[in-house]
């Protein structure tokens, strides 16, 4: 077999978590995957519904193509932004790199196989955004077979160019700087910069939209013939041909555009191959080197080392240190708790001043404290639900999970340490968010204090539920820390559960704003009862569940 294909096959096999050993375990994992897939359906349905609703009004003015333009552009943009970090992790920091480098493989073969695997995972990402868009558009436009064939071609080729661009950027970064010797520090910085870049893109897009004169849109709208789609595809290069192919589906021009798009895609692959041949080994060789000048302890540090502490404290400290120092964990379990205040500040500073003033007046005068409390509970559920700290608590241990088994700390103490850290991180993130909101909306200190107190059960819920999920479905087999948190079903499931609960609270806050304190108090009591139930389960059975996990 061709070495590229053989390597791709092996990498794909090792990327997918091997099936659990027992039949019971396999069934459990399959059920979890099914549940996660089903829980994604509302998101897919909401997107399909939005596309369907927008289709008619846009089609009436000949601008329905803008849906495809925006959809493809956004899909490409997401793949590009996340692709930069993903490719760096997979190409350079995965544990398999050290095993592959001594093998008689060309740079292009290793890079090609890794690119292929990354691309396959991007197809899964597209399932959530691009697939519902293409299918709904096809149904609403009454398209024939040729559209679906073209759409399949677009679906398969669309992520290639953004991923090639991300790969080229990753290779340039890794080849022309010394950052590869400081892997962790680089990844933490890259993660922070990525977050800022993502927010920056959003900010820039808002500014572009705000900066565009209304007359421009009117002119584009009046032109009809999908001129808005032309404008949309400018947001991301290379998408224009794909969109044109889909819009001209009935004619030969559609196929011609697809062929041109495929040729362009092929050209990008060729560029990647050439650049990879020249650059990949430069960044990959020596990637495992870890720079450190010897550092002995001074007398004060040694005296500090002599201080004894309790088991729970030691486990909490270890947990925090590993979370903060492991880039993938830092991004997904620590930083994610603190993005909300930054996002709010971005939104508030980039929005129109009049709108913000209006929002301030609304919150300041018309919204009752009870409604604010219920909305706050919803927000707390959403914020704490996004953090993977608790839902990956066991998974993060990976191949060193066996240490949990031989160290003389009760299993429940180990679980408590993980939950305490997750709770403190979520609480700190939410408190910061409240602080920012308090300043922006000039909320009284008493209201903030009450909000913080009332949202404690909402913050605790994802922590307890996440731990319960991860102790049942730990993802301990991974070759890259990134996978422990990014491809972890427990985290996805927790996001869905907390997201739904949070959305329900916010919806109730809006719907029953005149109902006084009853909905808010009910939500707090309900969450307290659920939390107590979850804690009771973990305290009673958690140790047994942890003991049952094979090391």
């Amino acid at each position, binding site marked *: 077999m061709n070495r590229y294909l053989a390597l791709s096959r092996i990498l794909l096999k090792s990327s997918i978590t091997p099936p659990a*050993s*027992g039949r019971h375990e396999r069934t459990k994992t399959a059920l979890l995957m099914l549940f996660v897939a089903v829980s994604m359906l509302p998101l897919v349905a909401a997107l399909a519904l939005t596309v369907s609703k927008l289709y008619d009004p846009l089609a009436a003015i000949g601008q329905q193509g803008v849906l495809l333009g925006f959809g493809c552009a956004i899909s490409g943009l997401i793949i590009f932004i996340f692709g930069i970090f993903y490719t760096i992790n997979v190409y350079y920091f995965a544990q398999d790199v050290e095993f592959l480098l001594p093998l008689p493989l060309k740079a292009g073969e290793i890079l090609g196989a890794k690119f292929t695997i990354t691309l396959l995972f991007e197809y899964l990402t597209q399932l959530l955004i691009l697939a519902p868009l293409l299918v709904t558009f096809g149904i609403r436009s009454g398209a024939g077979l040729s559209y679906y064939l073209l759409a399949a071609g677009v679906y398969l080729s669309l992520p290639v160019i953004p991923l090639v661009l991300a790969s080229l950027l990753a290779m340039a970064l890794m080849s022309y700087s010394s950052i590869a010797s400081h892997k*962790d520090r680089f990844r933490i910085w890259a993660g922070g910069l990525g977050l800022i870049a993502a927010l920056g893109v959003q900010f820039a897009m808002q500014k572009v939209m705000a900066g565009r004169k209304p007359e421009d849109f009117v002119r584009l709208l009046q032109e009809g013939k999908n001129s808005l789609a032309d404008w949309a595809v400018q947001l991301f290069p290379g998408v224009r041909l794909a969109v044109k192919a889909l819009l001209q589906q009935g004619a030969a021009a559609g196929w011609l555009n697809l062929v041109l798009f495929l040729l362009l895609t092929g050209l990008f692959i060729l560029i990647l191959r050439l650049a990879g041949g020249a650059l990949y080994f430069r960044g990959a060789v020596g990637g495992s080197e*870890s*720079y*450190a000048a*010897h*550092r*002995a*302890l001074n007398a004060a*540090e*040694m*005296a500090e*080392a*002599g*201080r*004894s*502490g*309790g*088991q729970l*404290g*030691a*486990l909490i*400290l*270890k947990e925090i*240190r*590993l979370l903060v*120092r*492991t880039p993938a964990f830092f991004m997904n379990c620590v930083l994610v708790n603190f993005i909300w205040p930054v996002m709010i500040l971005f939104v508030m500073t980039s929005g129109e001043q009049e709108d913000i003033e209006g929002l301030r007046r609304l919150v300041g005068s018309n919204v009752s404290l009870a409604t604010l409390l219920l909305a706050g509970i919803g927000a707390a559920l959403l914020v704490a639900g996004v953090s993977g700290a608790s839902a990956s608590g066991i998974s993060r241990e990976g191949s*060193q999970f*066996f*240490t949990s*088994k*031989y*160290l*003389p*700390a*009760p299993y429940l103490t180990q679980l408590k340490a993980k939950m305490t850290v997750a709770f403190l991180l979520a609480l700190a993130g939410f408190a910061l968010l409240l602080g920012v909101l308090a300043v922006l909306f000039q909320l009284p200190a008493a209201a903030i204090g009450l909000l913080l107190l009332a949202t404690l059960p909402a913050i605790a819920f994802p922590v307890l539920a996440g731990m319960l999920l991860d102790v049942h479905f730990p993802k301990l087999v991974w070759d890259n820390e990134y996978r422990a948190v990014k491809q972890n079903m427990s985290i996805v499931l927790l996001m869905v559960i907390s997201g739904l609960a949070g959305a329900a609270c916010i919806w109730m806050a809006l719907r029953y704003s005149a109902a006084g304190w009853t909905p808010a108090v009910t939500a707090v009591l309900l969450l307290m009862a659920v939390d107590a139930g979850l804690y009771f389960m973990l305290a009673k059975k958690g140790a047994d569940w942890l*003991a049952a996990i*094979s*090391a």
Partner: protein
Amino acid sequence: MIELVQVNKSYSGKVKAVDDLTLTVPAGEIVGFLGPNGAGKTTTLKMLTGILNPDSGSIRINGLELHREPIRVKEQIGFVPDSPDIFLRLKGIEYLRFMADLYRVGGAERRQRIEEYTARFEMAEVLGNKIQSYSHGMRQKIVLIGALLHDPAVWILDEPLTGLDPKSSFLLKEILRSEAGKGKTVFFSTHVLDVAERLCDRVAIIHKGRLLFDGTIAAMRDHFKADESLEKMFLEMTEDE
């Protein structure tokens, strides 16, 4: 003292990794655990330390039943796993403090032991560095020091000499002898037959999960009725199976 009585362990209900193993490691003795790759050595050590649960049988450490009093048993054990790649993002000193806290080692003792062992194993100069930056041998040494901090009554070591430089290897063997002399129990797996021959009071040989031999080297020679090297006897024993 370590006691294994009719211990069984199979993987996925099919592959029998340990088959009806009965073995006693008395206090004050160094017992080497030998066997070819995949013989069941690591599985046995993992069961002794609570990492794996046996399917059946009983495991007692100093008279305490492991499955009844796991924490008290674990507190008595100093365990060195086969891979030292653990807690790589902690600094050396942070790892040692963590271990001392978990094994409840008091302030004065821990400081004295950290200073003593890090000096003896020549690790004092790198305690402020992350374990990630250590070589394989240095990682092995920091894990070893972590396992010694609570002055364990029972030592269980999985291939402890792998990766150690000659000086550290000699030092470890010295410590093992000295601790056994004080009445501690030492049970370790090894592939290095020379080490077993020179260091151990007794050897236990396991193959395909079953105990083939348990006794002194002299008893083994009697068994083979020849003045052969341990290597030759070991090969004959495991080839016959």
